[in-house]
């Protein structure tokens, strides 16, 4: 089964730009279903990016982040072919992790 995490990390030699799109319902807990019952909150709480063993970015999210969340950021360093490790944990304790190669 494919990871829920899609990553595009590209380095121009100096700066690495990272875009991530994650498959997750990001239910806020404020929406009712067709029967009128609240859909319980189910969202990623923390998303981390590690390069060379160090954290380069941490996202703390609430239910106000869009479904199938997206984030883009850049960091100095990172070479083509190097690994970037991405992990998330949601409010139910579920996790996913993936490693992407910097292009």
């Amino acid at each position, binding site marked *: 089964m*494919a990871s829920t995490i*899609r990553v*595009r990390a590209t380095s121009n030699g100096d700066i690495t730009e990272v*875009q*991530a*799109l994650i*498959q997750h319902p990001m239910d806020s807990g404020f929406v009712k279903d067709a029967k009128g019952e609240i859909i319980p909150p189910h969202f990623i709480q923390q998303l981390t990016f590690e390069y060379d063993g160090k954290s380069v970015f941490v996202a703390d999210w609430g239910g106000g982040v869009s*479904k*199938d969340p*997206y984030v*883009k950021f850049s960091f100095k360093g990172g070479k083509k072919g190097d690994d970037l490790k991405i992990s998330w944990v949601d409010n139910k304790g579920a996790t996913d992790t993936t490693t992407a190669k910097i292009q």
Partner: protein
Amino acid sequence: MRSAIHLASAALALAALAFGAVPSAVAADTPNPPADAKAFRDFFTQKFPKVKLEDFVNGPYSMNEDLHRQWEEKEQFPPYEFSVDMGKEMFSKPFKNGKSYADCFPNQGIGIRQNYPYFDEKEGKVITLELALNRCREVNGEPPFSFLKDEMAALTAYMAFTSRGKPFDIKIPDDPRALEAYQNGKRYFYTRRGQLNFSCATCHVQSPGERIRAEVLAPALGILNAMPIYRSEWSGMGTISRRFTTCNTQIRGVPLNPQDDEYRDLEYYLSYVSNGLPISGPGARP
């Protein structure tokens, strides 16, 4: 609205006069799809001279700058990616009998979306891509999918993706039944229905770029090129079937069943008059 209607009629009349008035004049008895397509295209390019022909496939985004920017940002990493991946995966998995989708389609189903719908002369009916996919499943002993979303959307998303950039190439064979289907679709498009008494044309020919409540209306030219679509409103994917049925509901009409004759004929007409415009699917919409 009234000025838009006047403008629309004036433009259509002008188009008819300027480009092959004779065929159009006897259109009531003799359908002339090529003349229709040209008049259709000219109507929109004249109404929106600043929009490039191929940009009409971007619907409301071609009509509004603020919307266009939001769309560009989302296209950097679009929400329909998961659907395309799912479709690709489904395409590569064989059915229980060992066959696969590739066996049902020309060129293994790759890069062919722009040829759908087509008129099947043996059957005497319009065959859409969604219909062909479910038939493929049934012929191979698999249960059909809902026409509206999920798996059907994933399959059509993948197939559209493999055809991106290819121009719509809908053919109407020299067969009175094909012309009949085309005319049927055209009639449906221009017929008012529902409590709101709107036809498809009311919004998409008379008022593209304007707002209906909060939504900016898409032009009818190229309106199917981006299908299937990830709509923010649905927080998910939807097929042509989904859009036709929900649109009927929104004008307070009773929707037909997905893939009923009228819907397939409508898709035939709408696709034909957008011939030449590139497939941009799958797409994102508000």
